[in-house]
């Protein structure tokens, strides 16, 4: 069970690191709420419109702010050599990718999860929608973490064009957005839509360690 211990200590390290980067997390959340205010102000106080587009807005903001934090995903650890140390410590590249994806999910996406209820109040989203929003959000944000892992590991090789990775993530998240927003709007189809979303999650989750692992390996070779 050495590997389990290593995984636990991996998260200990991530936790320490993310706490010291606490302002980044807070910045994300502030961004989130500021944007919601912007929408409310630009739409005007019309309750109907606000609640009709509320879920879409929450989703988009979620997506945008998870692209916000993509750069932190591997870049820092790559540059100060800690990615290499983790690997030499016995974690294969694929495993590192999986662990990092979860870490992103926990430390970057989770804080959003907690701000959703507040956002729902601000945006007049009906309470009974909240549960749909929540479940689609959890799955969707995990898909985003996986996509983020792939694109930011690609970015390690491509030294300059940072936004390219974000664009790729966003293009791939179009179907996810469509499905997730669909889930909330079409409550009767909830089960079938969420299983589609779940299917996408499985595919991305399976590809992630393979793709990200490859990219990490190549970037370490070239550094």
């Amino acid at each position, binding site marked *: 069970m050495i590997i389990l211990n290593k995984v636990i200590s991996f998260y200990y390290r991530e936790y320490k690191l993310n706490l010291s980067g606490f302002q980044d997390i807070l910045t994300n959340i502030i961004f989130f709420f500021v944007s919601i205010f912007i929408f409310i102000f630009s739409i005007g106080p019309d309750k109907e419109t606000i609640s009709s587009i509320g879920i879409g807005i929450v989703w988009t903001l979620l997506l945008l702010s998870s692209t916000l934090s993509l750069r932190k995903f591997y870049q820092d650890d790559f540059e100060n*050599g800690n990615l290499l140390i983790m690997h030499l410590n016995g974690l294969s590249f694929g495993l590192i990718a999986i662990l990092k994806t979860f870490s992103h999910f926990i430390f970057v996406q989770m804080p959003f999860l907690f701000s959703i209820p507040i956002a729902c109040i601000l945006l007049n989203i009906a309470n009974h929608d909240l549960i749909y929003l929540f479940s689609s959000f959890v799955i969707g944000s995990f898909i985003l973490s996986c996509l983020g892992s792939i694109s930011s590991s690609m970015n390690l090789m491509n030294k300059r064009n940072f936004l390219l990775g974000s664009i790729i993530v966003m293009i791939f998240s179009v179907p996810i957005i469509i499905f997730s927003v669909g889930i909330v709007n079409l409550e009767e189809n909830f089960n079938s839509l969420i299983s589609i979303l779940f299917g996408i999650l499985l595919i991305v989750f399976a590809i992630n360690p393979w793709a990200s692992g490859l990219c990490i390996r190549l970037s370490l070779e070239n550094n």
Partner: protein
Amino acid sequence: MILVKDLSIERSNKKIFENVNLSVGSGKIILLKGKNGSGKTTLLKAILNLIEPSSGAIYWKGKLLKKNLYNFFNHVTYIADKTSSLSKLSVQENINIWKKIFLSNISNSQVDNILKTLKLNTYLNQNVNSLSFGEIKKLEFLRLIIENKKIWILDEPFSNLDDESIHIIGQTFEDHRSKEGSIIFSSHQESEINVSEKVLL
């Protein structure tokens, strides 16, 4: 234990070195020497299977190292030419993280001792980015003790250190050798260390 056989490496179609042979037995200290850009770092990385050689192979305990990678990693500490401590955290926090991720059961008093010999004991609560360059470098050596592995692979361990620290590190090397450990390191400086073999690149 490690056997490098006829290793040649190319990067971007440029030959870095050709037909390097090297064997690292237990209780051996091997020094890599060569000009800047002669491929010392590249060779060390190749031994860690980070760089694909264009020809030749590396063996570990008689088997191809590639096939046996994580087993090999269980016995290796690598200190690169860049330091890896997290600059926004304090010395103590860094040590704690290292202790955790290397699953080390080294005792606190042992760590204190080493910190004292390295004269780092007064900096425990200082952030790493406010340490002097040499102090950061010395901190990195703590990993050798915390990881407690058989094989040490070190890239220019003596640069930026004062003579006294070099002497201490040298003694640590001797210690390690006497415990049947093996060391392979690169250096530009002459040092008092009694190397078993010198490989010119």
